[in-house]
């Protein structure tokens, strides 16, 4: 728990800002995406420096990894779009926007100095009630017990986003577009045959990803880890299959897919209703079985997060699977 700024921090910050600058203002959309992934990974390093290992894992798995996969999957389509490169704004407007951003930057940094020595009453509270929260790790206890309602709504957001992606995919059915073969979008740039290297990579990485995902889920109870990170890892395994295998076997609107998608959300619902029936309040776990309840919720959430991320990846690529 260092509290000094070291040379490594300064180097990390400079490269982080450089990568972000290239990602935001780079000329070519594809290189901007690549630098965006570099920026995401550097951000994960920054989180390690801030002693927030859970967030570093989440940023690396979800922020850089899966957002990067989604962006790479979609960028091929936008490269030829006229706007993708040009910075089309008149000079006066750019100056005023620049002034506004500088104002925001200055105001925010000033507020940092203002609130530098204030402290929050929450950490001591967490320390005291960690005992009967069912998890030895404060962040997992915060996510799954103290603010369990937040996490439930969070998984609701994921569920609604994947339902939206599926309904957009089914309503604006790809078949009529692909029907017009002549104007179908050109073949993806990285032509991936399923028998070559990526398939070998997928085959070797698949067991490792699922193993590490499972371990991450188990670590959640006493060390940095948890449902979101392990869901992202297992989801990454599925996406790797989609990349290497081209067309995935994901049947979007089958009952199996829908029930697995809503597994996390409905398990939270059952836990909330169960707590009510047991006489407590919504999502109030009895201290004795809080650990088991948290693990059950996390396992269910991991499965539906993994499938949700696969569905999102499938729906944001030109070669989406058949509904």
């Amino acid at each position, binding site marked *: 728990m260092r509290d000094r700024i070291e040379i490594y921090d300064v180097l990390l910050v400079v490269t982080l800002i450089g990568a972000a600058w290239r990602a935001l203002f780079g000329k070519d959309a594809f290189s901007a995406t690549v630098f965006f992934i570099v920026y995401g990974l550097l951000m994960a390093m920054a989180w390690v420096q801030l002693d927030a290992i859970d967030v570093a894992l989440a940023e690396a798995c979800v922020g850089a990894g899966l957002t990067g996969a989604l962006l790479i999957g979609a960028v091929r389509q936008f490269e030829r779009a006229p706007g993708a490169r040009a910075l089309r704004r008149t000079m006066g407007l750019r100056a005023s926007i620049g002034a506004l951003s500088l104002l925001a930057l200055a*105001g*925010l940094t000033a*507020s940092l100095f*203002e*609130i530098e020595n*204030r*402290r*929050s*009453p*929450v950490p001591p*509270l*967490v320390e005291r*009630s960690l005992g009967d929260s069912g998890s030895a790790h404060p962040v997992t206890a915060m996510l799954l*017990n*103290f*603010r*369990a*309602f*937040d996490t439930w*709504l*969070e998984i*609701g*957001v994921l*569920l*609604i*986003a994947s*339902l*939206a992606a*599926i*309904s*957009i995919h*089914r*309503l*604006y059915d790809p078949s009529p577009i692909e029907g017009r073969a002549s104007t179908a979008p050109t073949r993806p740039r990285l032509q991936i045959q399923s028998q070559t290297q990526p398939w070998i990579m997928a085959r070797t990485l698949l067991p490792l990803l699922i193993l590490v995902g499972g371990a991450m889920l188990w670590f959640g109870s006493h060390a940095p880890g948890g449902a979101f990170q392990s869901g992202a890892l297992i989801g990454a395994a599925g996406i790797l299959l989609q990349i290497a295998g081209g067309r995935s076997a994901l049947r979007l*609107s089958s*009952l199996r897919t*829908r*029930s697995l*998608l*809503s597994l996390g*959300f*409905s398990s939270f*619902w059952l836990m*909330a*209703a169960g*707590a*009510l029936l047991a006489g*407590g*309040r*919504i*999502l*109030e*776990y009895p201290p004795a079985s809080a650990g088991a309840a948290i693990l059950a919720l996390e396992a269910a959430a991991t499965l539906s997060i993994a499938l949700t991320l696969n569905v999102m990846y499938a729906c944001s690529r030109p070669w989406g699977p058949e509904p």
Partner: protein
Amino acid sequence: MTRDLALTSVLLVPFLGVIGTLLLPERLRRPFSFLVTTLVLAAVGALAVSLRDAFRYEISGWGAPLGIDLHVDGLAVAMLLLTGTVAGAVSAYADGHYRDGSSQKPAAGFWPLFFGLWGSLNALFLVSDLFTMYVCLELMTFSSVALITLAKDAQALRAALTYLMTALTGSLAYLLGVAILYGEMGTLDWTLMSPVPGDDPVAWMALSLMTAGLIMKGALYPLHFWLPGAHAIAPAPVSALLSALVVKAPFFILLRLWVQVWTDAPYASHVLGALGAGAIIWGSFQAIIQERVKLMVAYSTVAQLGYLFLAFPILETAARTADQAARQDAWEGVIYFALSHGVAKASMFLVTGLVVQATKTDDLRSLRGAAAHVPAAVLVWGLAGISLIGLPPSGGFIAKWQLLTSAIRFGLWPYAAVILFGGLLASGYVFRVLWYAFLAPDGSSAPKARVPAVMVLAALFLGTVIVLMGIRTADVFAVLKAGSPFPTVGAP
């Protein structure tokens, strides 16, 4: 005890609706959604009846700074009542709208998103944690965006994308404000941070960021560009939900912040008031010149939201006067306006949907002779118009009367003038539609399709609610008294 049961079922049952309509087979979906709708309406009614005073409910048993609390007071229950009424009517309407075979695919997508939206709104109105409000806002935005894209049209995709990008930027600004507040106050619960010192610059920056974000999401005048496109292109039941409820959620959070947390904001609230006045004039003018009925109603939403933002300067000066009765009147007037506008706007969009279903286009000229073909629809349009203009038998009249008297009582003459002028402008577009509707139907208009009865019933139900709100106002005001920020000592 029934109070807690009602409260928990208001939160849990809509989410059960999401899971059920997602997993149940086709034929079970309609009865199940009907059951869930009635259950939630019953729960909201029970909560409203059993509400004596504001109370708190700790979710998962931990206290406020650590866990998340529900703060149930008159304002929250009033908004729950509005959400319940509008969602109930919209669910009946949607049942008819999606019954014919052609739109089978969107029907499957509509119901889980509808209950997701309803659940997120219920949670947002009840919860007292600013970050949980952020997650509810996101859940609400994603459901609304997905509902807009059900219109199966490239225009709907464009409108949904503009709405999504604007709403996301707005919610990030709001999140940054919450982050600064947490950094400074050490808690995320607005009831714990209530008396914010007026001279603290960091708190002011947090408030301005949150307000900027919520104004973008609530489509106040200069940042409303995404609303007309999205609300006009969406299917009728969806635009009713969007205009009546979704734009009210950011206003609800602003009301909490400006009236109950930042108590003394003398000059800043007049900025909101000025933007509100601009919205009324500009929005009403735009609505009058529109050729498509749906766009007209969407611009009317932009205008009527202006009235809501007039509330901030009025309530600000109210907070400083000693006269308790005047303060409570202003408070009740503002909330009653939100309720009456919600019901009136929802019924207007449902009526527009009926007309579009009958005449297949929503162009104003195709309305010729609509009174002959769908008389009930035109009747409900008239009632909603009365409420928007503020004529006696409707809820809108009571609300505008309270706002007007408060504005005059506190000497805010410009706002009083704008309130009156807005009513005049509103009559402009309301009567324009009525004028076309009552014209003799010329032979050229296309043969009119038959409209399912349940859709007309839904519109009529909202019409009666408008009139009831004009007559039996005492009940709603009694609910509003619970936990109001301007308690009137001794009043029942």
